[in-house]
């Protein structure tokens, strides 16, 4: 496939090299229809093998010319006239485009967050563990105690639960004026408990009972 012959991609699709992308698509559709197997126009001029080869050429031409990046590279190489036939092929153009992309790439590889799956290590205190299991009345202070026992800072808990640290501390202090509506509070407590490895349902229910009484107290004040 030489650069001057009719195998230049523009000539295959019968478009000028100033054609717009839309014109190239229209020409490609037309060429595909023309060189399809059943077209009477091919009779006595092209054998089925020749027609099939032409169809492949048309596909190749379109893969290069329809892609703006490939087309720019192809055109530059074609105009410079110092490239061999193989440098103008689809594979060569694709390769050049990839190299260009890697050079100019602004993508930084994202740092892998290793702390995601890690839990903080803590010394097990058996007495406290039994207390946790038996506890039926969860209030803010006890939540704080368990949190500190499990070596979770508020920051770390925030990271894990995605809950605002302000709300987390307000949860522990049981301050309704610093927390949103009860339905959200319940959600936060659930997350809190889940992250700490507690039975979130039990914790949430008992906490909300205490919380709601506190809420009524602040309302009546």
């Amino acid at each position, binding site marked *: 496939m030489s650069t001057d012959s009719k195998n230049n991609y523009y000539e295959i699709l*019968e478009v000028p090299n100033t054609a717009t992308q839309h014109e190239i698509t229209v020409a490609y559709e*037309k060429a595909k*229809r*023309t060189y399809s197997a059943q*077209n009477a126009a091919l*009779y*006595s001029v*092209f054998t089925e093998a020749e027609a099939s080869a032409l169809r492949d050429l048309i596909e190749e031409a379109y893969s290069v010319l329809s892609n703006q990046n490939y087309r720019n590279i192809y055109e530059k190489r074609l105009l410079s006239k110092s490239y061999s036939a193989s440098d103008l092929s689809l594979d060569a153009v694709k390769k050049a485009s990839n190299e260009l992309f890697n050079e100019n790439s602004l993508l930084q590889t994202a740092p892998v967050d290793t702390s995601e799956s890690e839990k903080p290590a803590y010394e097990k205190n058996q007495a406290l563990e039994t207390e946790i299991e038996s506890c039926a009345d969860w209030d803010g202070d006890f939540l704080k105690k368990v949190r500190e026992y499990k070596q979770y800072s508020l920051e770390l808990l925030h990271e894990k639960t995605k809950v605002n640290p302000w709300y987390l501390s307000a949860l522990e202090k049981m301050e309704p004026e610093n927390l949103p509506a009860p339905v959200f509070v319940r959600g936060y407590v659930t997350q809190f408990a889940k992250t700490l490895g507690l039975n979130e349902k039990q914790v949430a229910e008992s906490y909300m009972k205490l919380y709601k009484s506190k809420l009524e107290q602040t309302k009546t004040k």
Partner: protein
Amino acid sequence: MAEIWCVASGKGGVGKTFVASGFGISLAKLRRKVLLVDFDISGANLHTVLGLKEFKKSIVDGLTSSADGCRDMIVRSTFPNLDFIPGFIVPQLGQELCTFKVDALLEQLKKLDYDVIIFDLGPGAQKANFSLMAYANRNFIVTNCEPTSVEKTYSFVEQYVAHEGNTKNLHLLANFCRSSQHQGLGKSLESVLFKKHDINVRFSAAIRFDNAVWQSTFMSTSNLQNVFALMPYSEVCHDFYKICKQLIDPSELRAVS
């Protein structure tokens, strides 16, 4: 200065005479002065299409007689702005005569006050046809949509190139189109001729098959059985009108045709 158009084909029966008369009538409707010439050396047909049963003088006289014989052969048709010259009633004369006298005839015709002179040629790649086509501003090759017709069209073009060496003014017309693929046949032929032989075709168009054409030949009340006279608003007449507008004045063609 008159434009000269030739209507040729690779194969007989594709619709040359119909196309020639169609162009003539459409151009006349577009207020051009048109002269149709029946130059089919295998026999005269044009007079039938234009509703004339008998005639005294024909193209034979134009080729044999001296300079002034020209005006006598011209017959006014029933369509305004359209005149014609009947063709060879005795076929074998054509082959001998035309190779000598075509130049003189053309000189004569050009002096007359016509905008377009259309030659209806005979079928096939004949020397007589090629000699006329060499003078034409536009050469129309009519084809059908079947493989046999397409095959002969290619053969005709190849022989024309071999004879003339160039193909500047080729126009392709696909007649009897019955599907969208047929409508695209002209463009397909253009592409194939370019890829295989590096031939540039100047224009291509499709003329659809229309029942109105054969139906008008059954309207026996009229002497003239021409679809352009009897059913001028049929689709095929519209196709001709559109093609003529595109050819003579592309700038006049609006988006909705």
